[in-house]
Each structure stands twice: as C-alpha cells, then as structure tokens.
C-alpha cells in the first residue's frame, strides 16, 4: 500500500481529489489535515469529513491552521459557493473531527513512516510551513510532495500574477519551497482549456449514474458556472484533482524539470507569484520541480475510473 497524506482547504475540487485518493485501492490515506483557504478550516473539515464518509472511509480528519501566517484570509465563496460545495448544503457527517491539531498529527505521521509518505497539498501551504518550522527533519522524511499551486507558464487567477493557493499564504509557500522537501509544483494552468471537462464529457459522467459522479458534478455546480463566466473557460476545471491524478500516477505528468523557484512575498502587484528560473539566470540551485505538461486524456480517464 502507498501511504498518502492530504492537506486541503476542502471545497468542491478538493473534495473530488480526496475522493480519487480514497477510491484508489493501493493507496492508504493516513490522514487529512485541513487548512484555511477556500473556506474557513471548520467548514473545510466538514466538507472533508462528508467526502470521506461518502467514500465509506473512516480517514482521520484534522483541523490545522485557521489563518494564513502573516495575512488576513480571503475566502473563495464566489468560486465554490457559500459552503464551498456548490451550495449543496450537505448534512453534517457522523465521522468525527479529530481532536489533535493537524500540524502535529502530520509531523507524527511523517516521523512514524520515514521515507514512505506521499504528501498532496491542495490548499494554501500554512500547515506544511508550520510543520516544517516545528520539525525541519520531516522535509527529508517525506517521499514526495505534490502541490497544487502556482502558475509556471501562464497568468495568475486571483491576481494577474498569482494563483490562489500561493497568493493566500505566499510566506508559507516560500518556507515550503525552500525547505528541502522533494516537491512537484502542479500549477493551475494544467486544469485549463482542454483539461476542462466539456458539456459532453460532463453529460457522460452523469450517465455513469453513480453517487461519486453525481457528487463530482453537484458539489462543483458553482465552480462550473464561475469557471465559464468569470474565467471564460470551456467547462469544469478541477485543479486539485489534476494534482491528485499526478500524485496517484506520476506518469500523467509528461514533462517536468528541476528549477530554482521562489515566491514573491513583497511585490505590490505580484505577491504570491511563483517565479521559476527556467533559464538559470539566478545561478541558484534548483529547489523544486515544476510540471510543464500533463497527459490530458490520461488525467480524465483516471478521474472517470474513480467515479464510476
């Protein structure tokens, strides 16, 4: 069994990503730590617990940081709905929230399984940054970290320069990127355009007639319309599930490279920008990997398989 840990600001696309991991037979999700991001951590933890329960799992869900390190939170209700789940107002799950703080639980899990845990981050990196400051040894004990965040080859979304997850807590991202953790940054560009699910594809998903397919489309109701109306994108974009797909099957990332990557934390127009030194002009050693290209059909097929 492959051991996973998921750190998430659980809203609609996070929920689908969690579902993908929980419905992968050879993956054991040891824990889910929730962070403030799309929605407050309390709402996110409700959404994560609902998702785990939907999948028939008792995965421990922990609440972590309720606030970015140095900045005020900026919720993404406009994108995901007031509950983060397309205003579906799902009932409270009976799966309890763990008492322990997610930051401590994550540190313990990594130390108990050195070299074994695949970390998938789907939200702002506050929890992981805090864990790395408390326990710097864990950077080398994580097998691989797949991070949904940043924008290496395209524009930002919440600002012209920045992708949401990094923008919300750029200081945390800076800590994580420079911590020595092996990390693949999967930017939001990989869910755009062709990687969107078209109206026909969504119709096909609905025809699976499973609770997982319905959940995927229902909880993303707000996200689907915002994606089309605000971003002028063709259909349903699922940034977190793309990253999860790459974590589950790294061959879905077909082009990647190691670079010096920094995060802008001071800029007046650019805070949260991920600055990738592709040409090596800074002469600084590579700190993380960047995903440049994914196999779009393979990504979609993986999602179809998990929701059938």
């Amino acid at each position, binding site marked *: 069994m492959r051991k996973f840990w998921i750190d998430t600001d659980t809203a609609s696309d996070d929920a689908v990503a969690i579902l993908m991991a929980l419905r992968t037979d050879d993956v054991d999700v040891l824990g889910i730590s929730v962070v403030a991001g799309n929605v407050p951590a309390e709402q996110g933890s409700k959404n994560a617990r609902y998702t785990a329960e939907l999948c028939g799992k008792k995965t421990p869900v922990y609440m972590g940081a309720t606030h970015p390190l*140095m900045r005020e939170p900026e919720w993404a209700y406009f994108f995901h709905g007031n509950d983060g789940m397309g205003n579906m107002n799902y009932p409270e799950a009976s799966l309890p929230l763990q008492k322990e703080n997610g930051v401590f639980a994550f540190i313990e899990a990594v130390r108990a399984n050195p070299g074994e845990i695949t970390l998938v981050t789907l939200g702002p990196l506050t929890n992981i940054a*805090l864990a790395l400051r408390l326990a710097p040894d864990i950077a080398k004990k994580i097998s691989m970290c797949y991070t949904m965040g940043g924008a290496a080859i395209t524009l930002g979304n919440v600002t012209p320069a920045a992708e949401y997850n990094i923008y919300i807590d750029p*200081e945390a991202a800076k*800590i994580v990127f420079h911590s020595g953790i092996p990390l693949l940054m999967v930017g939001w560009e990989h869910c755009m355009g062709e990687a969107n699910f078209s109206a026909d594809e969504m119709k096909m998903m609905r025809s699976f007639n499973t609770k997982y397919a319905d959940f995927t489309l229902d909880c993303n109701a707000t996200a689907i319309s915002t994606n089309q109306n605000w971003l002028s994108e063709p259909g349903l974009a699922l940034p977190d599930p793309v990253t999860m797909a790459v974590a589950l099957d790294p061959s879905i990332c077909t082009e990647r490279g190691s670079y010096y990557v920094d995060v802008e934390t001071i800029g007046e127009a650019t805070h949260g920008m991920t600055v990738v030194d592709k040409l090596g002009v800074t002469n600084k050693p590579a700190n993380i990997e960047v995903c440049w290209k994914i196999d779009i059909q393979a990504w979609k097929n993986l999602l179809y398989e998990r929701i059938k």
Partner: protein
Amino acid sequence: MPQKIIIDTDPGVDDTIAITTALRSPELEVLGLTSIFGNAITETTTQNALRLVELEGHDSIPVARGCEVPLLMELEGIASDVHGRDGMGNTNLPAPKGKAIEKSAAEFIIDTVRAYPGEVILAPVGPLTNIALALEIDPGIASLIKKIVLMGGTVSVTGNISPVAEANIYHDAHAADIVMQASCPVVMVGLDVTEQVIMTPQYFEELFKAENPATNLIKRILPVYQEYHDRFRGMGGSTHTHDPSAIAYLIDPDLFKTQSVPVFVETKGHCKGKTTADWHKQWESRVDTEVCMEVNSSGVLDLIKERLTK
C-alpha cells in the same frame, strides 16, 4: 499561589541572570523553559537551558527545544560577540545531564496553556518565533494565555543590534509582529527601561560574595558580556539589565510604569525589527501593548540582588 510561567529563552548571559532569579523567587512557578536561537543557535541554547535548570536542583523542570530558524527571515546576527560562542561567555561548561523533552517548544506551550487555562504567563526573553508558532497553530490559546511579558523592542530609544532595532525583535520581526497582534494582554519590557537599569562592577561584586551556584556561574560567564557593553557603549564594566528586568516585572509590576499603545514591527529593509508605537492611532487598528516606559531602577536591582544572594 505562585504565578505559573514559561520562560522562552536563548541563554545567554542576561538570560542566565533572569532564569536563576526566577527559579529563586517564590512568587513564580516555572513550568518549563523553551529554547530559541538568538544569543546562540538553538542547539546551544537548549543545552544552556538544561544547564540552568540543573544548576540549583530544578532538574524536574522540563526544557522543550524550540525552532531553529526565524519564521520567514534568514537566521543572522547570532550574538556570539555579546554572549560568547557557547552563549555562556566562552566558558565551555560540561554537558548537562538531562535532555530536552520530545515535544517541540510550540507544542509544549500550547499543551501547558491548555492544561492551565487563564493561569499561565509566557515570558519570552528571546526572539518570538516559538510564541508566534504556538499562536499560529492554535489561535485558541490566545484567550487562554493570562499574559505575555516579553523582553524586546524599543519605542523611545535607539536600537542595540541596529540603529533602530532591539535584538530579540530583529531576529524574527515577523514573529514579533504576530505577537504584537495577539488578543491576550502583552507587556513589552524593552530597551526603554532595560537600559536604565545598570548593573555596575560594584553591584556584581556584591552578588559574587554570595558564592552560590547561581552567582558563581554568573561570575564565570560575565566578562565577555561586560566587554561587549564596554566596546560598544563605553560602559567600563557595567551592563544593561535586559532579561532580568522582565523577570522583575513578573515579580513586582509596580516597579514599572506602562503605557498602552499599539505596537507595529517593521519586517523589511534597514528598519527591520524596529518597533513603532502608534501613539495617536494613525495606522490601522491594532490591539494595545502595555509598553514599559519608566522603571524604578534601584528597586529592580535590589530585588534581583536579594534573590540571587539569599
């Protein structure tokens, strides 16, 4: 009932005077020491914290190891010229017997505050990284911490580590800015008062006459600290009284006069680590810090001498 405190510390010469004073004061119950970088690296200050609890038989007081680097900034300006490379005046003391507990400093702080809600005063006398981490990880503790009494900053006099910044704040300005926004009461014992409390060579001589383990250790480690004060401030063997003043505040707050004012911390550029009091509330709204502005110097000195020589 003695006041429960946790001392977050980077020992350090003046930390040593502060901690030995606290451990000898019946008004205070030291629940633990948490270590941090600053006067030396965290590895070293953790060892020194262990030495200090063992010095006079307080081995049962736990020492929790703190963060190794500032929250966001680079680690720089370790004060080996002030406190010696070992933080103990280059005296190369023997290794302590005990070990730091498993829990990190931030976790120890969170657990202890939650175990005694409303009862614990945090007394950080080093950079504020551990306190900030604890507040970030578990914001709920802010309403359970009785008070934070910190040594650091200056609002009315020049800095020490830079023209504008006091060293503890400078080492982790982001952490300090987080603490200055905490919703629990925060008391700042800064250079405004600590530089008014002067320990002279005569004062030290009187301390050393006691010849107990505390004063014997202080006597050994002091020369490097005195030399620094002479080299940079021309003090001829006298020193300022930084960390021990914060302990004096905990024992007898009436020795100080405070003013309530929001305090902001600069995190960038030349003025990094500068603490600015917004006296006329011209910047964005922020909770007040109680800033010590006046001190009864002889009262503080008498108190410390009484504790260290009894």
